């Protein structure tokens, strides 16, 4: 087994990972930083983000207002010190990205333009048409190429953290092209692997979103925080789950039921006006809009199709010129994947699993409780998103906390001891090599297929831990997941070769997803209240007395996770009522 030594390892090459790697390089060019990603960085799922990134830059806006929108949007589960740091550093991060070349849309005088977004009381969302994530990712990736101290391991899948003397000292990774398994040692490791939307059957998330970093931390004893909070985006295309950006509504799109009625007016989201009203109707928060869809379906007022119930997103009244200028990708996606032109036709949409508010427990510096281990972006939970993330906060989050993780890791390695190449970490690495090779060679296998178990997992989780949940459904999901974990030990692969074995990758990803799914189900069982995206029909009210607290799920090899509770940090905004449209 080959061993490679660096100062800092960044796991994941999306926006958070690239920003972290650049932050390490800028803090101290002498540090050897390596970016390890299971795909080429420009393939990362940041690429699919569409609508924009929020930061206060306009004179009519304020950090206060951004913080309040975020905290009320998150149903008061956000840590307010984290939100304050986030909104304060957001403008500088966004300006830095502008200096690095991101093609932001502009005002006629050359200033950056902003657009409205759901749950935001002022226009503050920077955008690059409706391909903001794509441009942000490519800008970061291309900019990262100028830093000589950033090494890359493209198409290497990290499968285990190496932990010795109570510190994270590196990782084990599978090099896809050769099938070789390597030990990568470092003083600090930053997890930036994104979320795990693929645990659900119907998701906007790319195939690579399998919760890898969350599982790596969970298995190393680091808790996952607030995993019960999964965001359903209200407007996904049926069958594919492809996202139709919230920008379609912020530019003036309407949501219509089967009678052509703007049904959100029946769900305490305000009155229908011809033009968009901030924090109202179609510009309400995502949790409330997705929940309204379910209620509307129960009333029999949605449209039944071959791919489930839908409502209609109507952008026809915006006209071709606005659609082409502001949301051209919406049109491209509809033409390609639905054979319809939104300039003239209604877009069928339904809620779709989109984002995980929860993730690896970190503090404000992106540090986890395990010394030497950091996490940023969707993988992490700081938490600024609370019980429901506002659209356009996540792209900004990967910049702010990616940079924070990089700076914190750089500071840490200055005083951390170097990992010992022949210490216990090496034994752990050899152990992991044996485990993976045994799987590839088919030792002790029992005939289960990856795809069968993956589908069963997705169905179980959706049935029990979807938009609305209850005790019985969650218990059933948890039991099904425990059984699937057992069956996963009996997976037999067709593919016994080492070279670019994508089946063993799919198997390792399945194991990761089962960890994430288990943490979601058990955290949701523990939270006996309804808050933001977590709606319990058996506990329909928010309970600040018992649950103004984060869940922390600690993994266990053979037992269900242990769930503990950590009080929310409140600084200036005492818990209040979420008010939209009035």
């Amino acid at each position, binding site marked *: 087994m080959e061993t490679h030594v660096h100062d800092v390892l960044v796991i994941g090459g999306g926006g958070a990972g690239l920003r972290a790697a650049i932050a390490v390089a800028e803090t101290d060019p002498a540090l050897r930083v390596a970016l390890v990603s299971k*795909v*080429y960085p*420009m*393939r*990362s*799922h940041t*690429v*699919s983000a569409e609508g924009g990134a929020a930061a206060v830059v306009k004179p009519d806006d304020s950090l206060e207002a951004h913080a309040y929108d975020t905290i009320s949007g998150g149903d008061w589960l956000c840590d307010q010190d984290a939100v304050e740091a986030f909104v304060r550093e957001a*403008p*500088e*991060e966004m*300006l*830095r990205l*502008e*200096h*690095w*070349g991101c*093609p932001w*849309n*502009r*005002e*006629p*005088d*050359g*200033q*950056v333009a902003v657009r409205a977004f759901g749950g935001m009381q002022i226009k503050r969302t920077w955008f690059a048409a409706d*391909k903001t994530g*794509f*441009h942000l990712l*490519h800008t970061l990736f*291309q*900019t990262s*190429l*100028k830093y000589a101290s950033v090494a890359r391991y*493209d198409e290497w899948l990290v499968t285990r953290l190496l932990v010795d003397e109570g510190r994270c000292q590196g990782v084990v990774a599978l090099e896809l*092209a050769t099938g070789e398994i390597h030990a990568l040692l470092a003083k600090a490791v930053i997890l930036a692997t994104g979320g795990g939307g693929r645990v659900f059957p119907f998701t906007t998330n*790319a*195939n*690579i979103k399998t919760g890898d970093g969350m599982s790596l931390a969970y298995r190393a004893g680091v808790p996952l925080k607030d995993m019960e909070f999964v965001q359903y985006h209200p407007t996904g295309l049926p*069958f*594919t789950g*492809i*996202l139709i950006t919230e920008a379609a509504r912020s530019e003036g799109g309407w949501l219509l039921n089967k009678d052509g009625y703007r049904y959100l007016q029946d769900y305490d989201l305000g009155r229908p006006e011809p033009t968009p009203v901030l924090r109202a109707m179609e510009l309400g928060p995502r949790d409330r809009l997705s929940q309204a869809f379910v209620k509307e379906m129960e009333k029999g007022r949605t449209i039944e199709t071959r791919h489930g119930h839908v409502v209609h997103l109507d952008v026809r009244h915006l006209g071709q010129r606005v659609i082409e200028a502001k949301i051209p990708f919406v049109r*491209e*996606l509809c033409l*390609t*994947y639905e054979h319809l032109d939104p300039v003239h036709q209604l877009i069928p949409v339904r809620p779709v699993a989109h984002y995980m508010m929860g993730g690896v427990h970190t503090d404000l510096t992106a540090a986890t409780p395990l010394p030497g281990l950091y996490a940023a972006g969707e993988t992490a939970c700081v938490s600024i998103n609370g019980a429901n993330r506002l659209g356009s906060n996540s792209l900004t989050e990967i910049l702010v906390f990616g940079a924070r993780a990089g700076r914190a890791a750089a500071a840490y390695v200055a005083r951390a001891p170097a990992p010992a190449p022949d210490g216990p970490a090496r034994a752990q690495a050899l152990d992991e090599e044996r485990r993976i090779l045994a799987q590839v060679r088919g030792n002790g296998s029992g005939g289960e*297929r*990856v*795809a069968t178990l993956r589908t069963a997992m997705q169905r179980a989780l959706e049935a029990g831990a979807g938009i609305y949940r209850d005790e019985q459904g969650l218990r059933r999901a948890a039991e099904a997941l425990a059984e699937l974990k057992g069956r996963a030990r009996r997976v037999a*692969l*067709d*593919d016994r*070769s*080492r*070279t*670019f*074995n*994508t*089946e063993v990758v799919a198997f390792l990803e399945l194991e990761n997803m089962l960890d994430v799914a288990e943490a979601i189900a058990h955290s949701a069982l523990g939270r006996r209240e309804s808050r933001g995206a977590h709606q319990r029909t058996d506990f329909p009210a928010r309970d600040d007395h018992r649950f103004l607290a984060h869940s922390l799920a600690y993994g266990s090899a053979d037992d269900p996770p242990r769930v503990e509770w950590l009080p929310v940090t409140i600084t200036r905004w005492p818990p209040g009522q979420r008010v939209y449209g009035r």
Partner: protein
Amino acid sequence: MPETVTLEVRRYRPEEETEPTWQRYQVPFRREWMVLDALNHIKDHQDGTLSFRWSCRMGVCGSCGMMVNGDPRLTCATYLETLLPGPVRVEPLRGFPVIRDLVGDLTDFLTKLKRVQPWIVRQTEGPPAQGEYRQTPDQLAAYRPYAMCINCMLCYSACPIYELEPSFLGPAVIALAQRYNLDSRDQGREARMEVLSEHDGIWACTFVGECSAVCPKHVDPAGAIQRYKLEAVVAWAKGLVLPRSGT
């Protein structure tokens, strides 16, 4: 509509065979399926050994480019229905060394991309606190089309020159160099011109135009190359740059 469709897939497993082979699979036909859906059906239910890359399945990550019936295509955006009655022939993208099955090696592209300095070059970099560099909508429009490249490599597969002259920078790299050259915030044009003016930079292109024809994002690399050549000749006439091409 047929109930099934046949896929003929190019296989190459270097641990087992020295030469690529063809393998036939029969998959259900579904009207809403892309070629990628058919490949995933094979992978999940028939043959877990078939290797290929994919991720976003919405035409923006650039992972799933393959030759489909001889043309470079994004398989996540190519309906099976358009290829009936079949068989549908699926091969790895032309012009790249094959690692295995449908997986090509992109190292060459990434090496060349870095050579053209695809980042904003400034003599002095203003601190973010001073605010944004102003850029009007017209200035944005000047380079934006070239910023739409998703690095899917279809243009390299379509390019007859890249196949014959592996040292040619190739369409996407030149388009991305142009993306920064045309950005009003950038001052790196001269440094990039040196790389582009080398004999394997832009001069190998004979303007076949296939790159622009296959681009799924309408980037028009051929236009970028022609524009560059013109600039280089003008610069050469002014004595600034010497085209070092032998051809």
